[in-house]
């Protein structure tokens, strides 16, 4: 079933949402990927970056400074918006609902993490199906691999940072081992590729 679109997302586009997961080395990686996206980037971007509790404000601020896109901490029940980067809050899982609003949960950690990338990815795959782009970046555990598998199984696009070039290769490697990928990229290649995907329509 095709979800309802936000009014300003064009019907002709093939993708509705981008989800990104990262952990160790994630801030630098996100700065490179998100920092290279123009203000006109038309998709909402949801990010889980494992961080120390309490550092959320800092992550939003640091990322905001290196992006022209708006960067915000997630707000429970808020709708996602084109070109807005939303970061999961420490201590809470972030989930995407079918009506494209955000839900939180304080349930058990998944892969030792809360927020967990798997929880976001699996819910987003369920919510928008093949209209989803999932990206696994640097990280030191295996969170995100089951989520990326769910994304690829529902027909979405799976992108993984080349583990050899990652600060911490475990997470992208686990994603490749368990989910495989449609594309394996250097960090610098990801933003231009996303632009191509959305421009192709």
């Amino acid at each position, binding site marked *: 079933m095709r979800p309802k679109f936000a009014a300003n997302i064009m019907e002709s586009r093939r993708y509705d949402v981008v989800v990104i997961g990262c952990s160790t080395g994630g801030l630098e990686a996100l700065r490179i990927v998100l920092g290279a996206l123009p203000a006109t980037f038309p998709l909402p971007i949801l990010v889980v970056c494992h961080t120390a509790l309490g550092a959320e404000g800092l992550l939003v601020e640091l990322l905001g400074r290196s992006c022209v896109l708006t960067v915000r901490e997630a707000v429970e029940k808020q709708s996602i918006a084109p070109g807005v980067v939303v970061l999961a809050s420490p201590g809470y899982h972030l989930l995407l609902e079918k009506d494209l609003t955000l*839900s*939180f949960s*304080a349930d058990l950690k998944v892969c030792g993490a809360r927020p967990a990338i798997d929880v976001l990815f*699996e819910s987003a795959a369920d919510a928008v199906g093949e209209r989803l782009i999932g990206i696994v970046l640097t990280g030191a555990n295996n969170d995100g691999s089951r989520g990326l598998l769910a994304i690829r199984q529902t027909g979405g696009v799976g992108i993984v940072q080349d583990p050899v070039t990652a600060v911490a290769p475990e997470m992208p490697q686990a994603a490749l081992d368990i989910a495989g990928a449609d594309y394996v990229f250097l960090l610098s290649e990801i933003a231009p590729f996303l632009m191509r995907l959305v421009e192709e329509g």
Partner: protein
Amino acid sequence: MQDVKDIEIELFLDAMRLRHGYDFSNYSRASLKRRILGLLPALGFDRIVDMLPSLLYEHGFHLHVISLLSVPVSEMFRNPEVFLSLRKKVAPVLQSYPQINIWVAGCATGEEVYSLAILLKEENLYDRTQIYATDINDAALAKAEEGVYPVKLLKDYAGAYLKAGGAFSLENYYQSLYDFGMMDSSLKKNIVFAHHNLVADGVFCEVNMILCRNVLIYFDRYLQGRVLHLLRDSFARGGFLCLGNKESLEFSDVAVDFKTIDFSCRIYQCVPNLPQTSWSPDDMTSL
């Protein structure tokens, strides 16, 4: 065409509601679905529909389902700054009350109730306080009433206790028995643990404070609004409400009845906006 798993979930929710009176239909769907799918390995089923015969015919099965569905995740002094704020900003007001009623709505396995009891004790409020700790999950309530937690976890909570303004050491409040610590009976004597379903049950007492943290996040906006009305209607005038750090009441029409005491800690005070009386001194002049 609807996804087949979503159809199964509708059938499951219908069975819970029609057969057992538990209505989960206004829970946030994404996390509810995750929890329902999590039941399958825990109960040894392959598909959600496979659970339906047991759910409809097996005595007590639904209670087991509820105990797993409303997975209690709780810790002592979670977000210690909230408990510090309760100590600094709310406790002084409570000092003037001869009798204090507090409702911990959605108490899960009780960690938060005991955190609160410790705080009240250290502020010399406990002896005139009655705490009602409620949850939908009877298995969690039984654990809460027991008040026995792994020592390893209790040691983890010691730091949060101090950050919450704890005056002594958390160890003062439990007796260790091998790997477990049992909360002191003096903390339990003024706590009543009771089954209460925020979705279906109504106001059951008049209270001066409600802790309802990380409960609303599991509900959709409609149900959040309804529960906020229930909480508001439970307050004595000037009662304090403490929600989870990512929850809020600003979206709801009850917001006008609350003033914010500490937004970052989500502490509010209920000061109902009483309707203006039709007569006011100004009217005199027009007579």
